[in-house]
């Protein structure tokens, strides 16, 4: 195998991994702050893809911009879903029953969103046509698809923005404190319920934006969540449950492993490598790659 070929697979893997990283950060933030495993995360990603599609066909908004424009409406949607549904089954009461309730709630939400979308928008796959989707940047013998390169760059910028928010602002620090110790956070005057709404809103907005970026090179259909939700979960567990930097690295690793798997296995089996790496990490480093305490953001 030529070195150039290997570099090509690594580069492609990292490019898609950047978008996985952005999706996974949202899931990790929600889990870290709320202790809620959101099974509907992939469905919000799918809705983000559709919104980006509608921006593109009705306003001829470029999907890279469209992805950014999904953030405000999905933040509000996340906030409302938290207030209307999740807040009823978080914060207080028997933890085991709460876990069950959250599980049923997010799984149910996932089913409702998928089926409603299928009914309203039909199962026919859609795509957004852009000039750059079929172009590539050439770095010597290595070709970088332009859509994936732009999506990667924007995912990095958004992830960096989240990082700055969490580490440099009072609100971001309050979010992390609520993840560490909700009771002690409330003694500082932090409204933990509002922090949950904020975390869910940001988590949903990030995965919707990641969906928008994905839509520059991936077909849009109501069941697309199924192809990504497992990858997000693996990324979050790899990174150390709930850790944001961990989920970011986890996403990159998954893109990389997926791509390198294609060197030895056919396309239909590209997730095999992901699961093998997942099992190896769980076996040798059960706390995840980043290996910090579980309850951190």
């Amino acid at each position: 195998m030529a070195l150039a070929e290997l570099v090509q697979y690594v580069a492609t893997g990292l490019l898609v991994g950047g978008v996985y990283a952005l999706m996974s950060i949202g899931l990790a933030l929600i889990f870290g702050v709320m202790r809620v495993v959101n099974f509907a995360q992939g469905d919000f990603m799918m809705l983000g893809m559709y919104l980006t599609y509608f921006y593109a066909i009705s306003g001829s908004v470029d999907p890279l911009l469209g992805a950014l424009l999904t953030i405000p409406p999905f933040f509000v949607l996340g906030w409302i879903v938290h207030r209307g549904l999740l807040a009823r089954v978080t914060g207080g009461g028997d933890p085991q029953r709460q876990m069950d309730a959250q599980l049923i709630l997010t799984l149910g939400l996932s089913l409702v969103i998928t089926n409603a979308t299928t009914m309203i928008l039909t199962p026919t796959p859609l795509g957004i046509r852009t000039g750059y989707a079929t172009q590539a940047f050439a770095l010597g013998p290595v070709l970088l698809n332009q859509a994936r390169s732009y999506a990667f760059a924007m995912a990095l910028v958004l992830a960096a923005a989240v990082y700055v928010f969490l580490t440099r602002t009072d609100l971001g620090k309050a979010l992390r404190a609520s993840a560490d110790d909700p009771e002690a956070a409330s003694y500082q005057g932090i409204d933990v319920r509002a922090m949950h709404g904020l975390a869910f809103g940001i988590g949903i907005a990030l995965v919707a934006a990641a969906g928008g970026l994905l839509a520059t090179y991936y077909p849009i259909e109501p069941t697309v969540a199924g192809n990504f939700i497992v990858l997000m979960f693996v990324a979050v567990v790899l990174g150390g449950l709930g850790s944001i930097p961990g989920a970011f690295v986890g996403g990159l690793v998954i893109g990389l492993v997926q791509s390198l798997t294609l060197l030895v296995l056919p396309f239909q089996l590209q997730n095999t490598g992901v699961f093998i790496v997942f099992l190896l990490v769980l076996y040798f480093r059960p706390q995840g790659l980043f290996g910090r305490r579980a309850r951190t953001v």
Partner: protein
Amino acid sequence: MLTIASLGVSYEGLRALVDVSLEVGAGEFVTIVGPNGAGKTTLLKAISGTVPSETGRITYLAQDLGARRPSERAALGIAHVPEGRRVFPSLTVMENLELGSYRRAARAGRKGALDEVLALFPILRERHRQLAGSLSGGEQQMLALGRGLMAQPDLLLLDEPSQGLGPRIVEQIFETIDRIRRERRLTILLVEQRVVEALELCDRGYVLETGRVVLAGRREALLADARVQRAYLGA
């Protein structure tokens, strides 16, 4: 400043506090002593709102706290330094301190409060970039106290600041508490198992046993009380 009238709290039917009434005046240092499981922590949590009161009324600065959420109570100037320190382990020492002054009324005074807290606990300045979870127990207690002071509170609730610490650190912590109260005329409600030290510091005290106030009085009266001497002072 703080008035508690006939407070009752239960955990799933088990009564932890029964008909507890007490008062803390502005500028006073009040201490609550009592054996393990007496309900001391429960009392402070009821004041902060992290356990619901079943009966009775808690009034702070002429406002009924009943319907207020814990974060709103903190916003009113009640700082709670909880049992077991409860610093935010994955945040740095500095971030922990900053969050102490998260409440709106404390933000403007954050810089000044930070200088004071770091002067009080120089070790925190040395460690300011370190994760709070990696501090020693004594350092964590200083951080928890410092975080409470960053709120520039009107009422400071302290739950067993001496717990699990060596004698030298305990002495230092008590000295610091005495100092901040003298310098700032801060109102303090202290819960302690170290009965002697706590009673000697306070203006007034209450003895809590199995959820009830069994004795109340001024410092001298409590220290001289035969029952206190027998049960707690080893006399």
